[in-house]
């Protein structure tokens, strides 16, 4: 009895600490993520003209939803998102499996190229696809029309399928590969080997073993991608508008740039994302309820990879071909664009020049913006890993009473579009005593970007922690290790590949995000992404292409450095 009580005492203390941490996390996430959204939702009911006494009513909501184009735009968004989600998921799962779980040669190169591809900016890349596929002057159309059996034009980017194609090129696959690869790396070979001993072939192993054990990650990535798809509008603006394809996010965007602005209507439309998120969260919980996804335990762990035999070169060829067509081809045009006097005009006299690169480096604010961006991205990367690894752990360890609420809060930053979230955060920063630190500073922007990355980072860590067995922690505890020590020395190294992924995604997104810092920066904290926006806005497409490439190069260098640091931490994993 005495022994039992003695054992129970530290356990009770630990539980109290967990509760304390739980409530601390709830308060932080409630304030940082819930409050801006609540502010925006409340503001959407304010129907008084700006700067007048508030009057509450439903006018903004009824105006937003009674617009004839709203429902059709919503339907189009769903249709597009689903259409490129399905092939995107299949391709990315296969690619991530080949990189992480097989002996395909060049896996690291393929993974690196996926990372590189993800951070190439959308806007100039879509322009590159237009140059390639335009029915009137597209290079691929011209090339294909030279063939006797293929009357021109064969391709048209200004169409539903054109938009799907370009999405698969700009982020439909790369993002998913980035998130799934480290999760798949954690899947030990023990189960796969057992299946093979039982006579299963590669495909059966993938279908019956590898995929089911990473189901939480697959569902999370699918949900993240679906929401991102619904919120996407850059590609649709360039390729859809000419043929009358409008998506839901375009409607929201239109309200935000209305003069005078109509943020109330925009928030009302954004509330649909809340419903979608709640539905996805419900589906996610229901699908995973009562199942275990532990693959890393204290008992034996094999990292042997699946041997593909003669198929390994074919697999590599398939991956590289996909990357070549979907990324390297438009990327070549993008690089050309940055050294052309006018992007896409090859037949003008002396079409090539380095003037855009010279002008970029000669811009009086370039180096300050570069410094700001690096500082912001570094803070965001570190903060995201520190914060979301803890939250992901709490959500995965299932000891929380309020896990569903906490998880819902972590999704909040994606409930409203970036520009609205930026407004909500500005309001929040100004309302806190920390406003002298946060307002207009790199710290404020970094915090906003950390908050904005919450859904991706939380879900990635949660999926990673779900793979770890409880016996690892218990063994450490029995040996007298504190929770902090266990977390730092056992759990974090085991999820290091995911931590590196999350850190780099946050770092890269902090470099490229425009909508989040747009209301939060000052002249002294202006990041590169705002400079990129200024170039695009004022029609300087070539300089924007040069800057976009530079940002991609910075992220790539960071990725190489990150891998160098993570590898010793994780051994051969």
């Amino acid at each position, binding site marked *: 009895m005495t022994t039992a009580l003695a054992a129970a005492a530290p356990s009770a203390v630990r539980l109290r600490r967990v509760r304390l941490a739980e409530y601390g996390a709830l308060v932080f996430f409630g304030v940082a993520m819930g409050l801006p959204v609540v502010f925006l939702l409340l503001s959407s009911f304010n129907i008084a003209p700006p700067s007048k006494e508030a009057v509450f009513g439903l006018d903004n909501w009824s105006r937003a939803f009674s617009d004839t184009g709203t429902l059709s735009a919503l339907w189009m968004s769903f249709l597009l998102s689903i259409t490129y989600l399905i092939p995107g998921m299949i391709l990315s799962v296969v690619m991530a499996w080949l990189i992480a779980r097989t002996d395909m040669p060049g896996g690291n190169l393929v993974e690196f190229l996926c990372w590189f591809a993800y951070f190439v900016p959308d806007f100039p890349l879509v322009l590159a696809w237009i140059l390639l596929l335009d029915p009137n002057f597209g290079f691929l159309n011209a090339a294909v029309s030279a063939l006797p059996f293929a009357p021109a034009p064969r391709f048209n980017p200004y169409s539903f399928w054109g938009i799907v194609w370009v999405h698969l090129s700009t982020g439909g696959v790369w993002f998913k590969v980035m998130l799934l690869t480290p999760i798949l790396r954690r899947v030990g070979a023990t189960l796969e080997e057992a299946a093979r001993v039982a006579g299963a072939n590669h495909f059966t192993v993938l279908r019956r073993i590898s995929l089911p054990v990473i189901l939480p990650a697959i569902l999370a990535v699918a949900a993240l991608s679906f929401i991102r798809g619904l919120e996407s509008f850059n590609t649709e603006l*360039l390729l859809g508008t*000419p043929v009358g394809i409008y998506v839901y996010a375009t409607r929201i965007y239109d309200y935000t740039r209305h*003069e*005078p602005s109509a*943020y109330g209507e925009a928030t009302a439309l954004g509330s649909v994302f809340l419903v979608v998120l709640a539905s996805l969260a419900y589906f996610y919980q229901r699908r995973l309820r009562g199942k275990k996804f532990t693959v890393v335990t204290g008992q034996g762990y094999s990292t042997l990879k699946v041997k593909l035999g003669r198929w390994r070169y074919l697999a590599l060829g398939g991956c590289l071909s996909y990357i070549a067509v979907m990324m390297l081809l438009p990327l070549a045009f993008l690089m050309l664009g940055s050294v052309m006097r006018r992007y896409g*005009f090859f037949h003008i006299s002396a079409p090539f020049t380095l003037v855009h690169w010279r002008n970029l480096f000669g*811009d009086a604010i370039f180096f300050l913006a570069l410094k700001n961006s690096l500082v912001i991205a570094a803070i965001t990367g570190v903060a995201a890993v520190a914060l979301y690894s803890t939250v992901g752990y709490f959500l995965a360890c299932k000891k929380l009473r309020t896990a569903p609420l906490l998880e819902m809060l972590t999704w909040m930053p994606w409930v409203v579009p970036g520009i609205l979230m930026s407004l909500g955060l500005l309001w929040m920063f*100004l309302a806190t005593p920390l406003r002298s630190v946060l307002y207009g500073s790199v710290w404020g922007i970094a915090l906003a970007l950390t908050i904005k990355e919450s859904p991706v980072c939380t879900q990635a860590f949660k999926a990673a922690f779900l793979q770890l067995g409880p016996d690892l922690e218990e063994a450490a505890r029995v040996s007298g290790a504190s929770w902090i020590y266990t977390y730092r020395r056992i759990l974090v190294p085991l999820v290091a590949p995911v931590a590196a992924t999350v850190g780099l995604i946050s770092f890269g997104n902090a470099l490229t995000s425009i909508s989040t810092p747009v209301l939060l920066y000052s002249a002294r904290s202006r990041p590169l992404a705002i400079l990129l926006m200024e170039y695009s*806005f004022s029609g300087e497409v070539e300089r924007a292409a040069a800057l976009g490439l530079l940002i991609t190069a910075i992220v790539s260098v960071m990725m190489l450095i990150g891998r160098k640091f993570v590898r010793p931490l994780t051994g051969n994993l």
Partner: protein
Amino acid sequence: MKKAGAKKSLGFLLAAVFCWFAIGPAGAQQKDWEKDWSQTLAAAKKEGSVVVVGSPDPVMRGEIIPKFQARYGIPVEFLAGRSSEVAARLRTERAAGIYAVDVFLSGPDTTATVFYPEKMLDPLKPLLVLPEVVDGSKWKRGKPWFVDPEEKFVLRPFSSVASLFFINTDFVKPDEIKSIKDLLNPKWKGKISTEDPTTTGAGANLAARLHHEFGPDFIRKLYLEQKPVSTRERRQFTDWLARGTQPICLNCREDDVRPLEKEGYKLLEIFGLSDIAPATNGSPWLMSLANRPPHPNAAKVFVNWMASKEGIELYARGYGSATLRTDIDHSFLNPGNVPKPGVKYFDDTEWSWIVTGRHDNREMAWKLMKSR
């Protein structure tokens, strides 16, 4: 002889008195102005910077800021953004008691429908003190043109003739479009590009004017039956114009088209037609002073310099706009962009047109376009 000498002395005395009355106060005024200006400059340098809000603009970034800093040693903190975003940011800041902006260089819509009615401005007129700025002879309208109803808040330094549309003459002969109604010729179906007219912007502004002058039937025919190709990306429709994909461009911008003309593309700017008057506008911006500016002296230096020959000319050359100053040689512009005396223009930046006329007509045009 003595009498003559006395008369002469009296004459000198009278002349001296006259000179004292006539020139003395002016000289004193000049000294007052100089004293005020040097005090302002000293105080401005102590304030350390001036915060200017405007649209993302290479001229501002590449020319205005470096030149102003070089001349006065006062750094310019330029915050660029879309007008609607800037307005949202300012409202939130001001609700929290933060007044962080000194000067607005903003578009007419935001100025007239947000900054002015929401009382975000202080009078600009009393701050203009440089002789070359307040001297009426330096301005085509006889004085600096304050366009707000109280004539003291919003300065309009530019007035250019705006293009109605552009054509690529390799595909469209100029004599094929003599009247705006010629755009309705079935031959041009699918051959016209426009900035998306269903959302705020230049596309909707032109639709509003056409609705105002030609009515709903014309809008229906042009924007629905002619199936114009619309986009939000300004480079896209300029490229279409040059390549001839859509050889008629309703909203191409002169500064985007000019480089293509230099490359030899046969692009023609149409300003007016037999049934529609050419229009003028105040692009690239109207200037106003934020109320409770954090750097009032630096703001005073900036607005005076910006309204001076040097400031306006720098912007006009960079942006390609005609100014309202008389001491600027406009030979760098396409002559068609400079308003001519005696010609009646439709003023697209006229205050009441922005506040009510354009807004109402735009709404009606949108209703028609969405009814398809």
